[in-house]
């Protein structure tokens, strides 16, 4: 059976050049980057070069603003909990949105148990927050605003530039979870007044368990992982040099032109998918907006009266991997907090929707195959 992968917001396959780079690095450069011997210097050279490539990719002022982590989750946890611990004497109020990833929401819940107050900004049916709400929520004791660049479930994009400008006028630091957006959008921490930014390598054809946190040079958060002095004492633990080299390779491959090309393709895929289904008489609606302003690789569709799990299983058995929110530890689907925030608790969209997310290896033929498969399943 031919398999078609349309769950690239979950993870992506590694690019062959990344695999090659990692293989080469593993073979030649096993040293500990903190060691002052020959092998250590070799490793440190790879680390420094990788850090430079990545610093440039977000227009960081200097390379030391990049801290390598185990991925998006660690970056988010570090940014949120680390900032709260470092700034708690200045205030105990934090602002976020109701449609963040769990890697942001769970640390927020943790802060609430530690005496912090968290404001969760609501979203409208397009997954958008109101900038007025944000302005009204900011207080003198607000120490952190954490708002994602783009949403992983519906692709809603936040007005990061405007948010950055508003937060810059306050006492708060601005953190953005850019895990979904980093591989596709043009990220500029200076332009957008971003203080902290989280990413993950495996969303852009890099390795898993690798990511970085951007932290503005004059900001010091409390390190969460304590131990060695790696990453200028901001993240203890021996650096995973092959993964970091692979990450930098993935970033290099992902030039502005490549990103632009992907965005254009994915946007066409979205239209191809929706138009194709509608032409086949399928009753389908987009959750959120089908708009060039949204994250191009994520589309979330409501199939009226079709339970998500039945659709998902049928698609999988036909060799098509899609997704529908997250599964609980016993494997069954949990209601999406994102769709709930957008449409309300009772909305049928919550249990009748699927997410398709595109990647570098998808083609228009894949989308055609999905249309055919979904039509066959629904018209059965």
């Amino acid at each position, binding site marked *: 059976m031919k398999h078609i992968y349309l769950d690239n917001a979950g993870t992506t396959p590694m690019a062959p050049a990344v695999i090659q780079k990692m293989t080469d690095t593993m073979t030649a450069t096993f040293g500990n980057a903190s060691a002052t011997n020959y092998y250590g210097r070799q490793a440190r050279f790879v680390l420094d070069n990788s850090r430079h490539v990545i610093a440039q990719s977000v227009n960081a002022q200097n390379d030391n603003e990049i801290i390598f982590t185990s991925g998006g989750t660690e970056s988010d946890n570090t940014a949120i909990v680390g900032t709260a611990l470092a700034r708690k004497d200045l205030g105990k109020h934090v602002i976020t949105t109701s449609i963040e990833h769990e890697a942001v929401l769970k640390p927020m819940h943790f802060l609430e148990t530690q005496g912090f107050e968290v404001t969760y900004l609501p979203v409208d049916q397009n997954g958008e927050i109101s900038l007025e709400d944000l302005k009204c929520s900011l207080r003198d004791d607000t120490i952190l605003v954490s708002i994602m660049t783009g949403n992983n479930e519906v692709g809603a994009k936040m007005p990061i530039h405007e948010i950055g400008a508003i937060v810059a006028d306050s006492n708060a630091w601005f953190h953005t979870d850019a895990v979904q957006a980093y591989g596709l959008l043009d990220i500029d921490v200076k332009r957008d007044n971003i203080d902290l930014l989280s990413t993950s390598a495996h969303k852009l054809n890099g390795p898993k368990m690798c990511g970085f946190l951007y932290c503005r040079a004059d900001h010091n958060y409390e390190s969460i992982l304590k131990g060695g002095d790696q990453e200028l004492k901001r993240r203890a633990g021996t650096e995973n040099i092959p993964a970091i080299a692979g990450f930098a390779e993935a970033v290099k491959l992902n030039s502005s032109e490549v990103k632009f090309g992907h965005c254009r393709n994915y946007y066409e895929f979205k239209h191809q998918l929706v138009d194709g289904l509608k032409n086949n008489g399928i009753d389908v609606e987009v959750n959120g907006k089908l708009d060039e302003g949204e994250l191009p690789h994520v589309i979330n569709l409501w199939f009226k009266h079709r339970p998500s*799990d*039945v659709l998902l*299983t*049928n698609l*999988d*058995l036909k060799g098509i991997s899609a997704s529908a929110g997250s*599964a*609980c*530890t*016993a*494997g*069954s*689907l949990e209601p999406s907090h994102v769709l709930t925030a957008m449409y309300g608790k009772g909305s049928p969209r919550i249990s009748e929707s699927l997410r398709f997310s595109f990647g570098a290896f998808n083609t228009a033929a894949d989308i055609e195959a999905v249309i055919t498969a979904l039509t066959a399943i629904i018209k059965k």
Partner: protein
Amino acid sequence: MVDNSHTRVVVGMSGGVDSSVCAYLLKQQGYDVVGVFMKNWDDTSDSGVCTATEDYQDVAKVASEIGIPYYSVNFEKEYWDRVFTYFLDEYKNGRTPNPDVMCNKEVKFKAFLDYALEIDADYVAMGHYAQVSKDEDGTIHLLRGADDNKDQTYFLSQLSQKQLEKVMFPIGGMQKSEVRRIAAKAGLATAKKKDSTGICFIGERNFRQFLSEFLPAQPGKMVTIDGVVKGDHYGLMNYTIGQRRGLGIGGDGQSNDPWFVIGKNLEKNELLVGQGYENEHLYATSLDATKLNFIAPIDEYGTDFHCTAKFRYRQKDEGVTIHLNDDLTKVIVDFDRPVRAITPGQEVVFYDGEECLGSGTIDHAYQKEHTLQYV
């Protein structure tokens, strides 16, 4: 060899050894096998771990060992609406329900069956110790599992022809020991896993405590048939006919014999207790039952006939004569010899030799002309 690769069999996988071996055997026979785990109960412990997690992990391990896709489907709402509310209602009425019978009827062989058909199942397979046979005209008969000790037809006795039409019981013809042996030989992760005991949603927890979360306990008096108060009870729903444990009464009666539950008085909220395992109030000579189901048509038997019956799971069969009313909605069952602790709410399941004919839900027990005060 027959090519089964175009025949899709959806296996209900619980994470236990029986359904693991089912999936394994079907895969060996070349079927297009799909494993599906049912999550019927939302039970997240204080530490945030859902008790279904381990079972699902075992499904994942075994399915990957066998080389089949697996999925999890959520039937919490169906289970709650169709099984658990019935379970609570029965307890409220002082009866002792059998949720597993209802679970098979309403979830495993209904909601799950529907789901399996939605994913193009040609057959559905279950790890029950039971067998089916088909007549030339297509009529399906339910037969006992080959392992006498494990036979589960008691729990399947409320199923219809339609529910059994597409069902396979791959281990129904085997002994449990053989199932274990196959699992071990194939190296399945569940080969040595302990059999589950008790009702699925309660698990290993204290039953009385569990029930009290849903039904407020109404304590009352424990009295003898002559009205002598012997102590307090925790609420009638916590006791079942013939029960000895948990009464907390010493011997101090007419003899040193232990005390047993011999009846319930719902109106006065009194638990009737009596001494001796063989207390006369524990022996019935007949019962009546409703909610009748016969798996295959019973025209050839008529409305009055002799057969055998079980009154609870894993009990030995008793000889009985059954008297059905004309529209098959009610049955009176006369026993060949008195039977101990007939329990309203449980199923009375009828057998003709190896065939399970069907069942009804016990409403009353009688000792000759006299109704035993069991609810």
